[in-house]
């Protein structure tokens, strides 16, 4: 078999030959139409995926440096046009398409990116009506974010001042197209918001004149959408009318379809306001007049009342009451006196009827009878008492100590002390003694000696 003179190649040699053949035969730049599958974006930023159609599959690689310029987000199943070159990838022994440009097939990439962003921001709720701030009804200080050079700034100014000449306008010049326009407008929005405690802007208008989709692109970018959404000051979008809607229009608190219509959205019509004021004035005047008349009427009703017609009425009523009481009191006291007088007279009549002389004679007889009876009774009692008294006196005589003197006893007293002499100790030698005898006779004697008879008898 070896003698067939077939050359033997290494794997590397084969891959090199295939690479050379591809380079020789295929054009260096090809556009491939297919559907994305196995989409994978590595953390390095490089993208790996496949393009496929009904029957076959083509592996693809897109470097991060190239993917940077892709404006939409590739997804599996998306029909795309991939531009690049075919080359061999020796480590895996496969060929693949190295993509340097990726576009959606059918619609443009810008449109797709716009639609994708709309969906994403919508899902986050940035367009929801509940987040829209109410516009001030009579704004005094209006900020305008637009290009200094464009026609839009004059259109906006004129549209405001035509309706509301009292507004003060503040222009914040920003680029409205080009690479970093969106970022600059967003920065201006944040700046104005940050300084608004001093600026005191009531409402902001962000806009530009009409243009192609690419010219308006800044107003479709997420960075501006988020800046509008985060603004504390209400924002009105006023972007030229050639495109239906920008994302800025969807996020803004209110939308004017062109810069020339910004005034209608932002400010009220001065004439209308003046008309309203006149109406209010008239209304207020007539209401006040009506109220005044009503009060006057009420007052008159009060004044027509009895108390104001005759203010003396309460006094007079009381005078009458008092007079009545006074009359009653006088009548009463007269009645009382009359009654007493009547009683007195009746008493007199009765007393006269009594005939006192007759009564006196009868009473005298009764009295002397009573006196006789009393005398008799008293005398009886006195006699009885005298008898009792004599008996008691006789008895008392027997008890008298001096009665014994008649029987020969005597009473001896010490003259100096006046005390009865009962024993030897009651006297001293030379004391004077008084001895009482019956018949109130007294003897005075002197003590010579004291002797105890009992003691002497023993001696």
């Amino acid at each position, binding site marked *: 078999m070896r003698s067939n003179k077939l050359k033997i190649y290494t794997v590397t040699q084969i891959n090199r030959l295939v690479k050379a053949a591809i380079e020789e035969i295929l054009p260096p730049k090809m556009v491939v139409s297919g559907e994305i599958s196995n989409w994978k974006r590595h953390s390095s930023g490089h993208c790996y995926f496949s393009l496929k159609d009904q029957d076959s599959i083509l592996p693809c690689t897109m470097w991060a440096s190239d993917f940077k310029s892709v404006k939409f987000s590739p997804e599996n199943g998306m029909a795309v046009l991939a531009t690049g070159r075919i080359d061999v990838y020796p480590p895996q022994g496969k060929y693949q398409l190295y993509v340097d440009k990726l576009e959606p097939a059918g619609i443009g990439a810008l449109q797709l990116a716009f639609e994708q962003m709309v969906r994403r921001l919508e899902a986050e709720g940035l367009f929801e009506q509940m987040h829209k701030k109410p516009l001030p009804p009579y704004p005094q200080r209006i900020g305008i974010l637009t290009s200094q050079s464009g026609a839009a700034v004059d259109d906006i100014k004129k549209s405001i001042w035509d309706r509301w000449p009292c507004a003060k306008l503040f222009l914040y010049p920003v680029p409205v197209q080009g690479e970093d326009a969106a970022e600059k407008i967003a920065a201006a929005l944040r700046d104005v918001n940050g300084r608004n405690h001093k600026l005191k802007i009531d409402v902001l208008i962000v806009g530009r004149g009409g243009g192609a989709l690419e010219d308006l692109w800044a107003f479709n970018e997420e960075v501006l959408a988020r800046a509008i959404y985060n603004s504390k000051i209400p924002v009105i979008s006023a972007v030229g009318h050639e495109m239906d809607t920008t994302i800025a229009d969807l996020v803004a608190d209110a939308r004017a379809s062109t810069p020339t219509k910004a005034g209608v959205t932002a400010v009220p019509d001065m004439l209308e306001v003046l008309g309203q004021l006149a109406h209010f004035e008239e209304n207020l005047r007539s209401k006040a007049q009506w109220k005044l008349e009503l009060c006057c009427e009420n007052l008159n009703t009060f004044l027509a009342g009895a108390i104001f017609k005759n*203010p*003396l009425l*309460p*006094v007079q009523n*009381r*005078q009458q*009451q*008092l007079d009545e*009481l*006074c009359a*009653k*009191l006088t009548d*009463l*006291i007269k009645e*009382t*006196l009359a*009654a*007493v007088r009547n009683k007195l007279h009746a008493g007199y009549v009765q007393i006269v009827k009594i005939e006192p002389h007759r009564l006196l004679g009868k009473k005298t007889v009764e009295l002397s009878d009573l006196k006789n009876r009393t005398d008799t009774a008293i005398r009886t009692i006195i006699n009885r008492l005298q008898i009792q008294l004599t008996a008691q006196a006789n008895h008392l005589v027997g008890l008298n100590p001096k009665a014994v003197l008649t029987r020969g006893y005597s009473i001896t007293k010490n003259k100096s002390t006046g005390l009865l002499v009962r024993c030897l100790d009651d006297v001293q030698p030379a004391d004077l003694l008084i001895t009482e005898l019956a018949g109130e006779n007294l003897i005075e004697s002197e003590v010579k000696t004291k002797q105890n008879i009992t003691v002497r008898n023993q001696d």
Partner: protein
Amino acid sequence: MAKNNENDVSKLSFEDTIKELTGIVSKIEQGQISLENSIQQYERGMTLIKHCRQILSKAEERIVKISEENQTENSRKKTE
């Protein structure tokens, strides 16, 4: 005592005085008090009535004065 009573009377309000007066009338009316007491009550009543009359005549004077002032003011306003 009498002086105290008079002092009391001058401080009494019209309504209180009328109340006391009514009480006196009904007390005499019932006739259950002595003649002496009746006379005392009558005397008291007359003092009270005098007091009431004074109150009323003062009130009347004030009202007349107030309404006169009011009328002068009104006519002055009208002439203005």
